[in-house]
């Protein structure tokens, strides 16, 4: 039953936080306690899964494939752990950033409800249940996005809500068609039901709908417009949570569904993934080099890394999948650190725009260094975690017959360095003409960024551990038989 605990803890904490919303301290303790329990559970889950293979639990006692199965393999457990770490950091940061009024409206409850959706999506083995968890995280993200209700926030939310709802309906239609064609919704069972039928119209149509839906969720070209329209508008803790988790759920779904359920080999799906990923990486990084505000640049950097991830998934060699999983985990931690740092800059300087901020390196050098480390990691400078992620993806593209993708990864990396160097120069290095000082940095805001920075340095100096986990997760993707037998065989 360990598999169900991350979801139950998140939902339970959300309820607790909501009930305690009028007592600030009680709510803070409940939220922090819930996040700490999540980290402990995730460590236990990853340890169990890596030592004794995939875990599963049949909900309500219905045997698979009739009931809903929760299942954790190395990939799920690894992402659950990253989610728990990001959650802990965001909760600590939000204790300092989020105003009392918004906490009273249920901010912490929404954060944990969103995490319940994310955990559920990572752990479910049923494709309709995946849809339901997507809705849980979507409705919570709507709440988080509009809480506080600034003008730009509402405008961003309209675009976010509209485009995400279309993706949701495509998801639902795809699931309906798949059920009509196969008569099952259990993903392990679908693996056998779909096998050898990839050329059938109904199956391909369903795959098309699902690819559109997950592509829109993960901000893939040409359906990424909701992301840069909304991610820079809410509180920094909120955008860090979104940046680290939401698009990654879309990537996880592509990785899971397009390896376990659908076969991409010999269908038009593999080239679509590679081409869409490559265009996304380029379009994203071009957006990142043109904007003049920290979080807007970082939003485009998210799109660019999503492109690289989807491209690696499309290449679909064991090395490429390992690379994608390694890069995915690295990206969750580093994006959270950078978005939180944007919130810190907003706090100490009152703005995050190039034209209004400067001189942080002179006034508070440690704060500047704290940005520089995750930024260099994002850019892929050794010996940080991003270097290994980029290196593995690059290595996977070299094995291909054409070197076009290798060149593309290199160009995108170079432009990524340029985009974060611009933030460094304009926000931190350039002296502040207006001669305004820095407000003191709250310890609760600095601590989570330090924690995430230590993790990216740690992974960079000692990549073996994360590599071996990514490798075993990729092996589970390449040969899903252990996953399938964990779902189908009743452990009791």
């Amino acid at each position, binding site marked *: 039953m360990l598999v169900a605990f991350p979801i139950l803890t998140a939902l339970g904490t959300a309820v607790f936080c909501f009930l305690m919303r009028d007592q600030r301290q009680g709510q803070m303790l409940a939220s922090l306690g819930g996040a700490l329990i999540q980290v402990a559970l995730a460590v236990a889950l990853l340890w169990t899964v890596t030592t004794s293979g995939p875990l599963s639990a049949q909900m309500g006692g219905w045997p698979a494939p009739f009931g809903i199965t929760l299942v954790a393999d190395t990939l799920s457990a690894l992402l659950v752990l990253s989610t728990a770490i990001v959650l802990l950091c965001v909760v600590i940061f939000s204790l300092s950033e989020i105003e009392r009024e918004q906490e009273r409206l249920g901010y912490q409850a929404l954060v944990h409800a969103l995490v319940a959706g994310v955990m559920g999506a990572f752990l479910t083995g049923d494709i*309709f249940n995946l849809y339901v968890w997507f809705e849980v995280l979507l409705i919570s993200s709507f709440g988080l996005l509009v809480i506080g209700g600034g003008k730009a926030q*509402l405008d961003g939310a*309209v675009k976010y809500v509209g485009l995400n709802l279309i993706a949701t309906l495509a998801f*639902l239609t795809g699931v309906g068609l798949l*059920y*009509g064609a196969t008569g099952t*919704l259990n993903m392990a069972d679908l693996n056998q039901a779909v096998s050898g039928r990839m050329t059938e119209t109904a199956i391909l149509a369903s795959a098309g709908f699902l690819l559109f839906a997950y592509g829109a969720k993960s901000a893939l070209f040409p359906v990424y417009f909701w992301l840069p329209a909304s991610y*820079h508008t809410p509180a920094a803790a909120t955008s860090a949570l979104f940046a680290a988790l939401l698009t990654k759920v879309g990537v996880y779904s592509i990785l899971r569904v397009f390896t376990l359920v659908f076969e991409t080999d010999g269908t038009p799906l593999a080239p679509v993934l590679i081409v869409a990923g490559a265009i996304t990486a380029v379009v994203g990084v071009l957006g990142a080099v043109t904007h003049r505000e920290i979080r807007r640049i970082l939003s485009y950097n998210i799109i660019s890394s999503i492109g690289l991830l989807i491209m690696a998934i499309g290449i679909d060699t064991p090395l490429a999948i390992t690379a994608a999983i390694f890069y995915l985990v690295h990206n969750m931690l580093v994006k959270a650190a950078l978005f939180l740092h944007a919130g810190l800059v907003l706090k100490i300087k009152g703005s995050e725009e190039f034209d209004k901020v400067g001189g942080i390196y002179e006034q508070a050098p440690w704060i500047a260094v704290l940005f520089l480390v995750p930024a260099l990691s994002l850019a892929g400078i050794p010996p940080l975690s991003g270097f290994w992620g980029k290196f593995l993806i690059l290595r996977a593209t070299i094995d291909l017959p054409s070197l076009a993708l290798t060149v593309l990864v290199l160009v995108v990396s170079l432009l990524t360095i340029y985009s974060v160097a611009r933030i460094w120069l304009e926000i931190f290095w350039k002296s502040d003409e207006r001669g305004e000082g820095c407000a003191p940095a709250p310890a609760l805001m600095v601590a989570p960024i330090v924690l995430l920075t230590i993790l990216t340095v740690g992974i960079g100096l000692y990549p073996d551990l994360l590599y071996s986990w990514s490798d075993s997760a990729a092996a589970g993707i390449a040969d899903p038989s252990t996953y399938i037998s964990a779902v189908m065989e009743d452990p009791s």
Partner: protein
Amino acid sequence: MDFLFVLIVGLLVTSGAYLMMSGHLVRFLYGLALFSNAANLAIFVSGGLSYGAPALIAEGEKAPLEPVANALPQALVLTAIVIGFGLTVFALALAKRAFASEGTALMDDMRSAEPRAED
């Protein structure tokens, strides 16, 4: 019978897409509502339609004796309707607040989050 439903799904999707592309927030939401009904009907049809065969099991039996309607698509559609209803209500409330703060419901003029360069 199936053909009629397929036709209706097609009609709902075309009208929904037409409304969505008009660039007006309220029409966009109407289009979304049509889309969501089209998706529900599509699930219903692809799950297999049957007439007048409720999914009931006679007393004392463990499985239905005669062919009955598949209850699962109905459960899926019911879940989807409930979720869709909640989301539509949220979207309408959001649209009202956004209209109040932006002073317009024309999507091209709603630019607070992403101001045009020349503004």
